[in-house]
């Protein structure tokens, strides 16, 4: 049996490796996505004071530390049974919205965008952020850098540090916002809304106006019919900071809607001996292996999933684009809501709609007269026991679950991290791409790129690390004979 090894695809909680096995006819027998690293936060956090968790767990990921910081802070609210004041909730959501704008911007322009803006068949030497800038103009490149810079500044202003923020407290936030800061952030939020609209226009002009790209988006090779998860507000609109977790089936019907404290009733995690990362699935549907369809508990938690799980967007401009998204991709309206879009590459478009929503939400929050209220800390005297908190991380629903002794020292910690939700769907997408491109032992030229595109749309944390500025995905395929002898090596161009 031949095998193809792609190593490293690098970090999720560490690095990643793809192993593809071919059968006697040279077709794909199976494909494995292995995550060879574990750091063990769930165990080494035990014994630590619970209030330190926002500052410990943000070190799970330096790409999205804000998400861990926020999930941990919300878990502390629940643990101590304290309700944050209205200004605290708004400040946290404002901070979180700025984070979403920068995170989604980086993904679209530096990571996912090059596939579309330049096209999947373009010269790999050009298929990176610099190529994007060459094609769409230097001014746009500057705008991207500016967008990242101003939102990181907001994160530092409100959270204390540009990477690994520190401001989260049980029921509070360590720093109030000054009127001066409000003015600056207001200006930035307006720029973000413009930038969000501009990015969607760019997507229109470059991607949707090109029939070949639209065909690619709706092609079967990038399509899976799974369950979808996302957090919604009381109107079933997307919310990143708070709400109920809603799961819809492949047919779009609501399967369940629950508060994050009930997560363990609905989610279970499977262990495979060949990976350090676990595979979450919907408990009541059950684990049926790496397959899609209504009988498989595999679910997806991405921008596309959030759009599918919601009834719409909470802000007007994003709502317009939400409707256009479903109308364009042939979704029907059933009982007042659109049926899901299953095309994984549409996740890039969904991400831009979320970017616009985050920008609009940021503007609403910073204009709120209450936002500069200085009373952001409160004294907490309750005895902690157990608390669960969740947010929508850009890469999926993020849940932190803590138990403590009466002194607030952690005794148990469980974490279901954004990208982890999508581990099974990503593995399935890789397999499907490989199946489509490896026939009779012949490896199509487009294999590397197609496999990249198949998993890059999920924006797994490993893609942030492997494919950021000005990057080219470090992929190499070794084709080995049954005796383990190397027959052929193909590698991606060096960016």
């Amino acid at each position, binding site marked *: *049996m031949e095998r193809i090894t792609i190593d*490293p695809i690098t970090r999720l909680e*560490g690095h990643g490796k793809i*192993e593809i*096995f071919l059968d006697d006819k040279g077709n794909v027998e199976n494909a*494995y996505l*292995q995550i*060879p*690293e*574990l*750091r*063990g936060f769930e*165990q*080494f956090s035990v014994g*630590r004071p619970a*209030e330190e968790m926002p500052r*410990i767990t943000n*070190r*799970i*990921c*330096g*790409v999205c*530390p804000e998400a861990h910081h926020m999930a941990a802070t919300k878990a502390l609210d629940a643990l101590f049974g304290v309700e944050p004041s209205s200004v605290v909730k708004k400040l946290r959501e404002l901070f979180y919205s700025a984070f979403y704008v920068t995170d989604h911007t980086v993904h679209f322009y530096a990571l996912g965008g090059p596939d579309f803006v330049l096209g999947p068949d373009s010269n790999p030497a050009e298929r990176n952020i610099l190529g994007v800038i060459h094609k769409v103009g230097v001014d746009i490149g500057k705008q991207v*850098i500016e967008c990242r*810079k101003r939102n*990181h500044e907001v994160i530092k202003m409100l959270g*204390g*540090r540009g*990477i*690994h923020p*520190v401001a989260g*407290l*049980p*029921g*509070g936030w*360590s720093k109030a916002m000054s009127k001066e800061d409000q003015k600056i952030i207001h200006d930035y939020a307006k720029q973000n809304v413009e930038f969000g609209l501009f990015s969607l226009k760019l997507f229109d002009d470059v991607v949707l106006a090109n029939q070949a790209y639209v065909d690619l988006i709706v092609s079967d090779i990038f399509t899976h019919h799974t369950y979808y998860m996302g957090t919604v507000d009381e109107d079933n609109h997307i919310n990143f900071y708070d709400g109920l977790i809603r799961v819809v089936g492949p047919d779009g019907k609501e399967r369940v809607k629950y508060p994050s404290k009930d997560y*363990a009733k609905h989610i*279970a*995690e499977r*262990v495979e*001996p*060949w*990976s*350090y990362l*676990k595979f979450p699935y919907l408990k009541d549907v059950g*684990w049926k292996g790496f397959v899609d369809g209504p009988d498989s508990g595999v679910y997806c938690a991405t921008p596309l999933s959030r759009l599918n799980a919601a009834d719409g967007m909470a802000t007007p401009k994003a709502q317009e684009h939400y409707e256009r998204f479903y109308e364009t991709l042939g979704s029907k309206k059933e009982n007042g809501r659109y049926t899901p879009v299953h095309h994984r590459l549409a996740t890039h478009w969904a991400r831009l709609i979320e970017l616009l929503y985050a920008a609009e939400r940021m503007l609403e929050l910073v204009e709120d007269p209450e936002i500069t209220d200085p009373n952001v800390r409160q004294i*907490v*005297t309750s005895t902690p026991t157990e608390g669960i908190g969740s947010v929508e991380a850009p890469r999926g629903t993020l849940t932190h*679950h803590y138990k403590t002794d009466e002194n*607030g*020292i952690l005794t148990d910690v469980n974490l279901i991290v954004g990208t982890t939700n999508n581990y099974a769907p990503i593995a399935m997408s890789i397999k499907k791409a490989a199946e489509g491109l490896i026939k009779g032992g012949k490896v199509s030229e487009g294999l590397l790129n197609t496999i990249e595109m198949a998993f890059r749309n999920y924006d797994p944390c490993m893609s*942030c*690390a492997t494919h*950021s*500025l000005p*990057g*080219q*995905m*470090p992929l190499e395929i070794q084709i080995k004979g049954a005796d383990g002898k190397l027959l052929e090596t193909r590698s991606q161009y060096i*960016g």
Partner: protein
Amino acid sequence: MGAKEKPKLAMYWGAACGGCEISVLNIQENILTVDEVFDIAFFPCIADFKVKDLESYPDGYIDLCLFNGAIRNSENEEMAHLLRKKSKVLVAYGSCAYEGCIPALSNLTTKEATFEKVYINNPSIDNPDKTFPQEITEVEEGELTLPHFYNTVKSLDQVVDVDYYLPGCPPEPPQIWAVLQVVVGALLEGQPLPPAGAVIGAGTTAVCDECDREKKEKLIDRFYRPYEILPDPDQCLLEQGLICMGIATRGGCGALCPSVGMGCRGCYGPLEGVDDQGGKMLSAVASVINAGDETMDEDELEHVIQEAIDTIPDPAGTFYRFSMAHSILRRVKNGKGDS
């Protein structure tokens, strides 16, 4: 190196979060200068070089290697050895590589307990057969392998020789840029490099010296958790009874955490000339306790100090939050060796 050949730069991660890579991007437009000055020789984050490319380089081919992340498993260690061999100057970049950082809190527990918690004993697990990840798994189609997970997290200099240490979790962008300028000056203009083994890209005094909060030499009776009081916005946090590691921590960050009302947790590592940050913090903490007057005998004094120190939860995990691997403590013994 030929006259026109650019110096070679590498950056690699061990057990890390990716924040160190992001910190490099956060030098903003200066990243373009880095791109002009250096040729990238190995940098999985941004460029497609493979381990076999690295293996093919002559020894010492890479002029500057920034290694971030701790040594958590066999793969991290193998890569550290390979990069040491191929690099003229190897920098332990960021707290993980320098001193173990957050991942090294794992040295307060064991590999067995970690596996038990992650794969067996948690509320969302479905693992009736008690499956653990295996270094070798026979699947239907063939064999799959994983690296060996160590019992003890190590700093980079515990597995290879390190030339310089660049502290911070992550390092602050202006400090990173300053270091890169020094290295570029040395490589291109022959300016001297700092002495081997130096801590670079950081201050030489404590975080307190960069902090705007006012110190009044006030003594305290007990310590508070951050949610137990509403701290005065202008006074020293430690003197208000909130644990702040600034007094035992090397400066260079600009006292970011205390400036937003949160105590320093020590991510820039021990002070110049101090090996053990936790030990230093313990004596610093003892010195701010109001132990009573001179008439007390030694036992009584010790008792009062101990009572106040007992109000600090988890001193080991707090005082060694970032420096566990590199500390005198290094790990809690479990009698099972340390790899």
